[in-house]
């Protein structure tokens, strides 16, 4: 564990009856990281989060939040944590304002601080008009937004969010994505469990991938893309594909293989470098008419799928 670790998960194992939900899971999240926690349904993401919050007791291993075990000392460990659960159910007898006020009280905020914070947060999540209405009248997306506001009420050092944008419309999703980015720029540590790989790739600095209760990768996002990239591929769309063109491309030093798919050539490269210039010159030399030329590196989704299959 480094001195900057905000979340430390060490050798965590959790059973539900005979089912092993987590199997020796270990990772750390340092201050200022935006950590995307990825995995298919039932992989153990929510179980990990609930152990981090002291809601579940692990069978083996330990977690620490800011160096404190939340199961042993929840008051000090959770003081600086904001948590937005997946598809939250909030207390419907409260209005949005009242629930934020109650949560502020739970964090020991003064009446003045709560008063200032509540409407600021309702505005931030786009619920200012709904603050005085009972939560029972909110839509799912609104409840989700209020849940993010609740997670921010104590100005947390670390935000733990389980599928935070589920149920939100595309506009709200984009808004929250930029909110998370600006929060991370303020120096907050963000831990996001998500299925939305595109979202994770856009905002996360680090990722952890979990499958069947085991961590298959944890590290910086560039490293995961690198680790799971087998080769770069150039996709060339032509008016007409000829045999001579294929064989001449195959003879190039940097080309590993050429595959024909209709009027497209999928040119696998030996090195992870952009050879589009050289390829287009070769095609022009062979009198080919190029319609498009794209370089495919690897997306987080490709890396994720490869990781789940057991390696690069």
């Amino acid at each position, binding site marked *: 564990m480094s001195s900057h670790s905000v979340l430390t998960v060490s050798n965590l194992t959790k059973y539900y009856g005979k089912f092993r939900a987590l199997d020796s899971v270990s990772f750390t999240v340092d201050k200022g990281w935006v950590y995307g926690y990825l995995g298919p349904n039932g992989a153990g993401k929510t179980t990990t989060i*609930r152990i981090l*919050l*002291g*809601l*579940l*007791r692990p069978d083996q291993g330990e977690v620490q939040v800011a160096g404190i075990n939340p199961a042993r000392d*929840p*008051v*000090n*460990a*959770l*003081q600086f*944590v904001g*948590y937005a*659960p997946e598809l*939250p*159910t*909030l*207390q419907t*007898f*409260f209005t949005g304002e009242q629930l934020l006020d*109650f*949560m502020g*009280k*739970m*964090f*020991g905020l003064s009446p003045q601080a709560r008063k200032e914070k509540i409407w600021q947060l309702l505005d931030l999540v786009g619920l200012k008009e709904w603050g005085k209405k009972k939560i029972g009248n909110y839509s799912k997306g609104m409840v989700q937004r209020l849940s993010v506001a*609740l997670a921010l009420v104590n100005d947390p050092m670390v935000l733990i969010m389980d599928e935070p944008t589920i149920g939100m419309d595309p506009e709200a999703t984009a808004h929250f994505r930029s909110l998370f980015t600006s929060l991370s720029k303020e120096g907050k540590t963000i831990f996001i469990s998500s299925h939305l790989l595109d979202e994770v790739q856009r905002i996360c600095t680090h990722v952890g991938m979990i499958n069947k209760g085991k961590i298959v990768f944890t590290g910086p996002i560039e490293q995961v893309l690198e680790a799971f990239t087998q080769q770069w591929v150039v996709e060339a769309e032509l008016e007409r594909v000829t045999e001579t063109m294929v064989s001449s491309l195959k003879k190039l030093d940097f080309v590993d293989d050429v595959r024909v798919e209709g009027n497209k050539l999928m040119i696998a490269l030996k090195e992870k470098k952009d050879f589009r210039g050289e390829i287009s010159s070769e095609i022009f030399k062979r009198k080919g008419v190029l319609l498009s030329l794209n370089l495919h590196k690897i997306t987080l989704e490709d890396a994720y799928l490869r990781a789940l299959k057991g390696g690069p």
Partner: protein
Amino acid sequence: MSAIRRITVIVGYEWRRALAKKSVLALIILAVAVQTLILTLYSQFTAGTMFLTEEVKPFMWILGVLQGQGLFVQLIAIIIAGSTMSEEYEQGTADILLSKPITRVEYLSGKFLGGFSLLALVEALTTVVGVILASWFFGPQNGLQYVPLMFLAIVYSTLIFFCLSFMFSEALRRSTLAMLIALAMLIASSIISQLLAWLYITTSEYLYFYLSRGIPTWGSNYFPSLLMRELMTIPSTTFLNLINDPLIPIEAAKRGVSEAVLVREALQQAAIIVAIYAIIFILVAAYRLLKSDVTKKTA
């Protein structure tokens, strides 16, 4: 923030949660309505009978208060406590609350005190209503200086079924099931207690006598009336029979001692029995909460 402050925040939350439920409000109104009805019936149908003599009228507030304390207040206790813990699991809100900087002991204490203080408020209401109605129907009342003590005795005596329902609420984490089991135990306990008393009267076997006192309803039902007998001299046996343990006069005759001696003895036993049951039920609930995972949304 201190532990007491955190507990107070949960107490306030619990009040709001319980009062938002229409069933609790309906039961409170019903309890007061039934109390009014009973006293109205007494005033209408016992006038001029052996029961309602002039010397009994100044003590009718005891009946007015104890009638309110009977079935309905126990029912309200079971309903408030039965949902206190379990509803948070059923609705998934336990995750939200317990992921905040609060220990589980503080959370449990806040929930318990919140529910129980609300119940005490309901009991204060039925006590005041009982006294007012008795004064209204039967004229000036005697011994009103004991009303606060009577109220505290009622609050104490409802601890048993409040704690029982609270325990099931945490142990089972299902509100309806917790309330139904607690209610079934209240009814069963009441029947078994009567049965054991009858067996003692017919067989004179002391085992039945002590068993009948060990049943939860005995302490819960008789603690307030025993305290009243200890504090006041009530001049009518017919009246006393309505509110008192029927075994006391039988036992007094058998042992050849005054009823006052047995009342004092029974009062102590009732106080101890209420405390023992309440402590056991609370400890079971605390053990369950401290030792197990917070279950996800169950409803």
